[in-house]
């Protein structure tokens, strides 16, 4: 029973990590109708910048500030150089161009930092752990991760629902041309949203760096998961991304911990060892397919109608 509780906690925490990555992606997609495959490499850059910042300053917090600033700057540079020219193009063009950015940035990171994985130490103040069951410690940093994810969710909620910028963002998501006709500089709004999305990706990278390997291509895997999350949640919906991330985190974690045991009840052990992990790794995609079938616009669609 404690094991199940622990696994639920683990699932929520994975969900929060996924939300951190998916939030920026769904924001950019929802507001700008822009498919940014490069979101994953922006996450990677956040992690690398934090490692570099840590090398310079020796402090996790200064490294975080530097990495956030760096993510924002790189995001804006990319917006001006590449993405700005793609807003009016078809989704396929956007996919192709942003995929090119992935290849370019993955290689650049390798040239600058090498291909061996790097690390970012957990900040001292969060370096403890709490015993939650016999023999198992829960790292404080993971709790910090959960808290920061919730904070980002709250910040986005307030920003989108209660501020003037948020109102414009929502309006822009509904009908960009109309907002533009009403005298709002939609280009500047898009640039702001994109920069913010880049910073969110960078922040996710910074928070992931102490628990995951910082290596070229680290964002590619997560990008796929992030897309699963925003498709399940409803593309463009922050609330949907949050709920879907938690669902995906829980389904994946509980699935991984129980699938083999359940398979063993039904199948001989050798077959169960094959079937369990195979099913567990498919679960979230099956979930996505189910959602797409029954509710094609996601569980919490951003746009009604």
């Amino acid at each position, binding site marked *: 029973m404690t094991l199940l509780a622990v696994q639920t906690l683990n699932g929520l925490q994975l969900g929060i990590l996924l939300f951190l990555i998916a939030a920026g992606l769904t924001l950019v997609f929802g507001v700008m109708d822009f498919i940014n495959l490069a979101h994953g490499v922006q996450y990677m850059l956040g992690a690398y910048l934090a490692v570099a910042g840590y090398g310079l300053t020796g402090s996790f917090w200064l490294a975080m500030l530097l990495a956030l600033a760096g993510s924002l700057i790189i995001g804006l540079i990319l917006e001006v150089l590449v993405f700005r020219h793609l807003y009016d193009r078809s989704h396929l063009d956007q996919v192709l161009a942003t995929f090119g950015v992935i290849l370019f940035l993955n290689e650049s990171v390798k040239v600058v930092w090498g291909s*061996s994985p790097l690390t970012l130490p957990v900040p001292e103040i969060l370096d403890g752990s709490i015993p939650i069951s016999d023999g198992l410690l829960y790292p404080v940093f993971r709790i910090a991760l959960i808290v920061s994810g919730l904070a980002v969710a709250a910040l986005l909620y307030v920003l989108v629902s209660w501020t003037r910028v948020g109102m414009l963002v929502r309006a822009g998501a509904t009908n960009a041309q109309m907002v533009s006709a009403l005298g709002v500089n939609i280009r500047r709004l898009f640039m702001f949203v994109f920069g913010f999305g880049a910073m969110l990706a960078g922040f996710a990278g910074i928070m992931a760096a102490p628990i995951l390997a910082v290596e070229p291509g680290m964002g590619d895997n997560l990008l796929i998961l992030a897309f699963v999350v925003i498709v399940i949640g409803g593309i463009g919906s922050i609330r949907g991304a949050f709920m879907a991330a938690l669902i995906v985190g829980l389904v994946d974690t509980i699935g991984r911990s129980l699938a083999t045991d359940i398979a063993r009840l039904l199948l001989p052990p050798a077959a169960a060892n094959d079937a369990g992990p195979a099913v567990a790794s498919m679960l979230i995609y099956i979930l996505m397919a189910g959602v797409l079938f029954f509710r094609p616009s996601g569980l919490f669609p951003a746009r009604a109608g």
Partner: protein
Amino acid sequence: MKKILTAAVTAAALGLSGVAAQAESLKIGFLATLSGPPAALGEHMRDGFLLGVKEAGGKLGGLDTEVVIVDDELKPDVARTKVQGLLERDNVDIVAGVVFSNVMMAIYKPVIESETILISGNAGPSPIAGKACSPYFFSTSWQNDQNHEVMGEYAKDQGYGRVILMAPNYQAGKDSIAGFKRHYDGEVVDEIYTKLGQLDFSAEIARIADAKPDAIFTFMPGGMGVNLVKQYAQAGLKDSIPFLSAFTVDETTLPATQDQAVGLKSGSQWASTLDNEANKHFVAAFEKEYGYAPSLYASQGYDAARLIDGALKKAGGKDKEALMAALAEAPFDSVRGDFKFNTNHFPIQDFYVVEGAKRDDGKYIVNIVEKVFDDQGDAYAADCPM
């Protein structure tokens, strides 16, 4: 058939004698995975190999040596196309390198069928060690199962009665677990198969903590291993449940795991602290040249270059028959100490348990804990008809 081919080769050589007469030169195609997340392994192996060539003054066995380096991108079909290019366009004398077994299986046939010498610097899939062995193939690494067998034997020696085994859910992961179980005779409490490329291991770690085994054995190459090691240490299991592994804790991942991997065990045929002249020289020269600590992959690449150098000297040139006979005698001082070829051209060598350690200069390396196997061959050599 062979006679006809030899005649054809001679004729071709005569036809080109105008060029050949200038200076006999050697062309080696070096295939390694140099892009994507596992690129670090390929780079270590390549750097080791190039160091060996450089130390021979750019002339392995006294022949002007050109190394054509090719990235297989970890895609068997790409590797196959590029190897065809090496064989047909570049006319290489030797193909060397290859990090991953699936790439090796894809290029093995074309290289062997073109009667070109193939020297593996890493991959050692079981078919090549057994039924499909070839006189053209030589390995300066190991058969894939062996470093896992080392840990199984070690777990048995340590009296670990209950273990949990964990590996990614793909062929190499399953082979790893089979390899561990070959010598291990205790109880396997659980076998956990994870997703390839898994990021978060908290679910698996919670299961391990719950089952309280005497030890765990895992095979988590590359970034997966880094994720696991970090999270294992952060969950506080590092000091309570011994961590046995293969290809998880080495100098390619230690820069990322650092203190969190100190004391974690791994099976290996080499460590930078092995006490022999060739190794001392290699480690010092490698770090001077590249500025980072060599891993077992680097040592295998270096040995491959030294093997070619020694065999060419012994054969007195690159005449294929003589060169193959010379290669089989392994006429070089391996950085791992004892080294000779088995009937299937895989090494007979010693295997050790190593552990992550921090050196006095702050670099992280693996250090020898104890020798587990002495002059050990692999389990498939008996199936090889050679």
